[in-house]
Structures are given as C-alpha cells and as structure tokens.
C-alpha cells in the first residue's frame, strides 16, 4: 500500500467540473510534480489536498489514515497531515520571522512557546536564516521569504509538504538552491508535492510527474530521472518551455491562481 494514495477527486463549480476523478500515489520521501497547461486544474488539485478547495468527492489515504475529502470535517484533518507554501508565501507582515514560525504551533497545536521557539530557531539555523529570527518579512529577499515560508510549514511536522510554483518568483540562480533544499527534505522522509511550470526543475527533481489536462490525470511518469521520459509527459515538456529553469513569463496571469 503506498504511503499516500489520493483517489477520485472531483471539484465542481456549478455545472463546471474543474477536476474529474483525479488521483495519484506516492511513497514516503517522494517528490511529486503536478504539471499541465493553464487551467488544467493542477493548483486546484494541490489546494484540495489541504482543504482550501472544497471537493465534490475524493478519498485520501495518508500515513495509514483514511480521509474522506468531501466530509465537512476533512479540512481540519487534512491540515494535520499537510502544510502548504504559497507562490507569494503569505508571511504575516506584522510578525517577526520567529513569530511567523511559532504562531500555529502555539495557538493551534497548543505547544509551549519556549519549546516552539527552540525548534523554530533550530529550523532557521538549518535553512541558513539564523540571523533573521527577529526580522520582519518585509526586510527579507524573495529567496529568504520562501525559506521562511517553508520553515513555517515544517514547524507543523507535516507528512506532506505542498508547494505552489516554488520557483516562479525566484531569480534563476536561486532556483537550484530550492531544488537542493527540497531534495534534502525528501531524503529526510518528507513527501513533497509541487505544482510547477519549470520543466528543468521538474524533470531533474521529480520521483513522479503527474500530467493534468482539462481536470483529468492524463499521464503519470515514475522514477527519478525517468519520470519525464513517459511519452505524453515528454511531449508536453517539449512544447512547454523545454528545460527552462524558471517559469516562462505569464504565470501571474495564469487563471489557475
């Protein structure tokens, strides 16, 4: 039985079905990439995994636990399993980096502030942000903001780390750093699911690639270094930016967001 198994996810907007029986599997420590044309439903799919997008139906088995994704209480359960890093990070502007990290652990998980701060400082240290603990988000560079957002997500000790376009807002030379970081996290047993337009990053990083088209899973490629060789995926990648390290211009106007 795979570590995470998502099945039969349907999302409807009125009569419009933006996601139709979508699903995927992944093992622990896998990096899974959702790719597909604009409007294919990949960001919607990602958001269903953390209960930010209500679903018509859908099942998730994760970490030995079954979640009925359409149940009203599923959002809370999903948020215990997963954490998300948004494209624009969503760091709390009036709080220091440290407080951004400790807020959810203290007010949601009710851990002690001292313990949470201790863990937060260790995480910041690991991500090379030890000196930024007392700084406000506005004073960080784009790459630093992203690492803070990742650290904030990791504070929840999630089984799944979701990332929406992790490289699209970064300078090209920062893209490689993120890849290294994600690979590190995956090696420690974190299962990572990302939506990406950066085909170079996708093909070098992914253990699985899920190609979405028109709300459906069109193809799945598996195996690091091989996933991108699946014929449909290779064809899609050839027509969508080849090995471009960064997102081709226009991701901000993508209707997915």
């Amino acid at each position, binding site marked *: 039985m795979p570590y995470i198994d998502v099945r039969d996810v349907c999302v409807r907007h009125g009569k419009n079905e933006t996601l139709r029986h979508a699903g995927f599997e992944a093992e622990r420590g896998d990096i899974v990439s959702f790719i597909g044309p604009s409007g294919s439903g990949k960001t919607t799919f990602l958001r269903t995994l953390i209960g930010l997008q209500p679903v018509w139906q859908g099942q998730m088995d994760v970490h030995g636990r079954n979640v009925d994704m359409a149940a009203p209480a599923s959002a809370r359960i999903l948020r*215990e399993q997963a954490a*998300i890093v948004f494209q624009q990070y*969503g760091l709390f502007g009036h709080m220091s980096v440290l407080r951004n990290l400790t807020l959810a652990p203290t*007010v949601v998980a009710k851990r002690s502030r001292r313990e949470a701060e201790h863990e937060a400082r260790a995480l910041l240290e690991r991500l090379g942000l030890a000196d930024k603990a007392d700084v406000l988000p506005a004073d960080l560079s784009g790459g630093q903001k992203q690492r803070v957002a990742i650290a904030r997500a990791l504070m929840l000790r999630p089984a799944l780390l979701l990332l929406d376009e992790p490289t699209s807002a970064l300078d090209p030379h920062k893209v490689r750093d993120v890849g290294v970081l994600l690979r590190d996290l995956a090696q420690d047993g974190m299962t990572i699911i990302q939506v990406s337009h950066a085909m170079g990053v996708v093909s070098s990083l992914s253990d699985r690639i899920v190609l979405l088209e028109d709300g459906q899973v069109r193809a799945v490629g598996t195996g690091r270094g091989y996933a991108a060789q699946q014929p449909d995926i290779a064809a899609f990648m050839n027509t969508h930016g080849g090995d471009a390290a960064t997102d081709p211009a226009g991701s901000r106007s993508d209707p997915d967001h």
Partner: protein
Amino acid sequence: MQIWSWHGFFTYLGSPYIFRGALITVIMTVVSMMMGFLLGLLTAVMKRSQHRVLSWPARFYVWFFRGTPLLVQLVVIYTGLPKLDIRLSVLACSIIGLTLNEAAYLAEIIRAGLNAVPTGQIAAARALGLSERQIAWRIAFPQAFRLIIPPLGNSVNGLLKTTSVTSVISMEELMQRSQILVQDQFMVLELFSVAALYYLLMTTAWDFLQRRIEHYAERPYRRQQKTAAVEAIELPATTQDAR
C-alpha cells in the same frame, strides 16, 4: 457698544457653565466613538461576509445612516422612542444617535483596513489550521488597525464638532450653552471664540493621544527599522573587508 470685550472673553472662558458644556461634549464624543467603533467593526465584518443574511443588513444599515442627516436621525430617536414607551434622557438619545451615525462611517473605514490585509496571509493562516476567529484577531485586525488610525483620527475630530448637532434635541453641550449665553448678553464674538478655543483644546488633546496610539501600533515595525539601521551601518564595513 465696544467691538471686543476682554473682560467678557475671560469671564466666559472661566465660566463653569461653559466648562460643563465642554465636558458633556467630551463625554458624548468618547462614548459614541467607542460604541461606534465596536458597532462599526461588527458591521464591517458582516458586510464582508459571503453570506447574504449577514452582508445585506450591514449594507442597508450603512446605506441608511450615511444617507440621512444626523439631525433627522436625532429627532426621530428623540420623538420616536417615547411613542414606543421607551423613555431615555436627552444625553442617552444623543449618544445613541451619534453612535448609530458614526458606526456607519467607521464601518467603511474599518472595511477598507480589512480589505488591505493581503488575502495570501489569510489563506496561509487558514492552511496553518488557524480558526476564522484566530485569523481575525491575530492576523487581520492588528494589521488593519494600524492602517486605519489616521482616518480614525479624522473621525474623532469630526465627531467632536458634530456633537453640536445634538442641540436640536435640546442637548446642552458646549455649542448650545454658548448660544444660550449669546442670547443673554449678545457677546457673540467673545462667546464663540471661547467655544472655538475649547474645541481646539479638545482636538489638540486628541492629536496627542492619536500620536501615542500610532506609536503603539508601529511597535513591531519600529523594532524592524532599528535592525535595518544596524545593518546599514555594518554594510560599508563588510564592503571594505571585501576589498
């Protein structure tokens, strides 16, 4: 008849009758502002709601109380409530009228502040598992509050002077009492100068208070500036080392 009487001016300036009128003005302003803020906050949150059951009453309320003159609202409250067998003092009626009117304007100011909080932060807070209430109190309100202090200051200033409208329901506040004395001795200029001086004094006191509130709201950001300043000093040194 002389043009200006210093004696008259100072007599009125020291008059307990006028002073108590000013005190009533302050009381009406403070109480109406505080209650108006709470009601305005509630209205703003309701108006932003996706549920029509909540947003429509809030819209109607703002539309109605911003769209009709305070003078009319006060008269309706003052003459209407006794007909429902609710008997309140003139002061209570004045405060109710001012509160209802002010809340409608404050609701829009507060709504603007809440709208200015980036939606990405709200989504992030939700994904982190914070409840809607926690998101409101810990993420949205603190950031919105900082933004709305300057327009709130305008509102307090405006309200201080708007309280004079309550004279139509015979509320004896600063302006009304000045006018009563004018009819007695006809020292128009002296009396109104005294009243103006009182208003200036009150708005000055508010200015001072507003700066303190702003100072408080800027606290987290100030600590930031300090850090930035330290970095700015250290930066040239490192550049030199590099050479």
